[in-house]
């Protein structure tokens, strides 16, 4: 599939997303975890690879909040990653790649962060 880094790519239908949970998408040969948070009504996209557990599992983590930060907790060893910035809250040295994500015409779309 040819995709460009500078345009939005359709990934799946908006209702393929599970409220308050994650899915994994294949985008530009990368695994991307996409989350829909109902309470904040936001979608987030970060790399699916858990740098601590060394496995592609973050889409299967729980999302939560601490103060105003929305994060995903790894299902393996529970490290938390800020969904907006990719930063690990428990070990600031680690940071996930983040992606631009939006819902447009009932389609979930991804774009490389500039």
């Amino acid at each position, binding site marked *: 599939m040819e995709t460009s880094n500078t345009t939005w790519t359709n990934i799946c239908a908006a209702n393929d997303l*599970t409220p308050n949970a994650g899915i994994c*998408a294949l985008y530009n040969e990368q695994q991307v975890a996409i989350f829909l948070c109902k*309470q904040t009504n936001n979608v987030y996209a970060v790399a699916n690879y858990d740098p601590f557990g060394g496995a592609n599992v973050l889409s*299967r983590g*729980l999302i*939560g*909040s*601490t*103060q105003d930060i929305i994060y995903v907790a790894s299902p393996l060893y529970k490290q938390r990653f800020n969904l907006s910035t990719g930063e690990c809250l428990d070990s600031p040295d680690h940071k996930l790649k983040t992606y631009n994500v939006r819902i447009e015409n009932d389609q979930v779309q991804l774009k490389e962060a500039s």
Partner: protein
Amino acid sequence: MSKQRVIVVGNGMVGHKFIDTIIGSDNHNFEVITFSEESRLAYDRVQLSYFFSGKTADDLALTDAAYYEENGIKFVLNDKVVDLDFPNKNVITASGRVESYDKLVLATGSFPFVPPIPGNDQEHCHVYRTIDDLENITESGKTSKVGVVIGGGLLGLEAGNALVNLGVETHIVEFAPRLMAVQLDDGGGALLKRKIEELGVQVHTQKATTEIVAGEQCRYRMNFADGSFLETDMIIFSAGIRPQDELARSCGIAIGERGGIVINNHCQTNIDDVYAIGECALWENFIFGLVAPGYQMAKVAAAHMQGDKETEFTGADMSTKLKLLGVDVASIGEVHGQTPGAQSYTYHDEIEQVYKRLIVSADGKKMVGAVLVGDVEAYGTLLQLKLNDMDLPANPSVLILPAAGGEEAAGMGVDALPDTAAICSCFDVSKGDIKEAVAAGCCSMGDLKESTKAATGCGGCSALAKQVLDSELASLGFEVNKDICEHFAYSRQELADIIRVKRIKTFSALLAECGSGIGCEICKPAVASILASYWNDYVLEDEHVGLQDTNDNYLGNMQKDGTYSVVPRMPGGEVTPDGLIAIGQIANEFNLYTKVTGGARVDLFGAQLHQLPTIWKKLVDAGFETGHAYGKSLRTVKSCVGDTWCRYGVKNSIGFAIELENRYKGLRSPHKVKFGVSGCTRECAEAQGKDFGLIATDGGWNLYFGGNGGMRPRHGDLFASDLTDEQVRTYIDRIYMFYIRTADRLQRTSVWLENLEGGIEYLRKVVVDDSLNINAELEAEMQNNIAHYQCEWKTTIESPEKLKRFKHFINSQEQDSGLVYKIVRGQRFPLEKEIEVTELV
């Protein structure tokens, strides 16, 4: 008595430390004056690089005029001391100022060494030492496309980072064959190089620059001894430091052969009343280019001046831990094989790019040194082992091996450290100091930093300091906040009461009722469990999906590589040959690793998400149900065959075990629950080690409660004797439900029972005598649960909508490419990283 006049020449980190020590000693017999040739008072040179990520000179300042004035410290900036008059005890500055002293401290620091290469003095050639240097580098950066750092040591890499931050194409040129030649070995240096190159920095090792001439593409061209060249617009020299001993040398103070002001163990020079500290000082023919030893010297000199002749400088540990260009690097002790017979353990993970080498003494008992690149988690532990000369564990490799599933990283408990162990070497804070601080009321890292300054220097000790703090707090029995998390100001038991009384059915309703935020990985699964315990809904209802740990969500136990295990229920451990054959065929078809568990059933490992529904469809078709191995719920009822086959059996334990397993299967609880049913007092089912245990006697069943295996084995307490089947069912219904109502999250029955005021006696009153008048309620709740049981896998595979979630990618049929296996004993296992032991040359 008139005050002693102390003059401190140089107001760098060490000079300031000396002054701060005098201030802190509350000794009012000193009048201190400090001179600096720079325009600023002391600032944190260790953190200098942060200047490029937005920190200002003020942020880096270690002190300010107000603090000095408040404490009676006089300071003179922009005026260099140019002469010392020892007979009259005067210092003379460039501006002609003359000040007398009683004691003189030289803290003149060091200057960057610029190799004598022709062309090294051009406009865009810089060094990396002061804030002024950094400002000049920033200016050059604005008109440069390419930048080169000469020197691949510690400071050179920091300078490289500065160039990256300026957005110029960055090169590092090093004369030695590897980066950080002093601190790292070949393996560590090679990995560091690889990591840095991945960040777009080009590293050129074994290059000797012979001249800098005009370039063709860029401003300059650097010609190398091997005939190659590199073009660049700017150059930063970072080829090491030299002690700033010019003033001392010109005034006749003893200087080492290769520079440095010679000092003794009290930091005294050969001239009376003249001390030298920090990077300008030469102790035992050694210059210490790190801040921690400089700080030690400052304290020694201050102590000596105040009459303390005991405190001596006796060398310093040169271990370092730092982050260079985003790469974690640490080095401890001797890493170049100086110790005869030393051997080493090497852990090298090329996938994760981690290199760790632990060098141990010939007899393997003591640590000699260590190199860590990419993962410096072990630094704190290793440093303590080295500094305190502690004995290594029997198998030292665990110190550098990654932690196995779920366990804490291997290491040594902080409790093992002596009170004298230095935790923070920047500020010389020992474990004993932290204990004192805690005893004096400090109970957070913030408090600790404020009262002891621990972890406020390089920060390398913060994890260790936190561990000591936590361990101290725990040993002092500090009250633990029982709130489940920041989203609910209630304990699990209180939440359970709210849910039951207000008949709340969803997490969002509970959040609206009494919570805040969106919840988290602590409260969501806990609430999901309570909801399931009371209402026993299908756990994958849309409302519940976002609440469950992945294990509950995909109805399997996630393994370390992200695949799942599959455990069909085998009540009582009983299985027909056909059932066993069916499981074997399915395992074969999907190449699942197969093992019999401790709970007397079969565990199949390595199923990928998309395979789970097919595997379960086949299992359900063969007559199996989910074993709930993934849930905080009833796991297994272990049993023996009892009087059906066994010569000694007293009752039908296997029959009763199967009945009980079917009665309570699927029931969610605060933690997992296991049963055992033994057919006679020989206790082959190990029932006393289970949450609920039954042992058959001639008079009926003896019911035990609160047993546990695992980390803290415990035998169950005898709850009642000689019970009928019916009594057993009733009592267990009540105890089980009472536990579900009142236990904390993840609290096993053993711990719950121990924390229950009145213990087993009290439980008996509630369950047998109905002292709380709740038994009817408890029984009704249990009945409701039993009536609503469903095999979650059966429900799931019948719902196409739910199955949508069981694939790795939402938009592709591809599988996770990250799964790699090896074959051991005829079955597959996730690929492990290897460890090798090598002999040092």
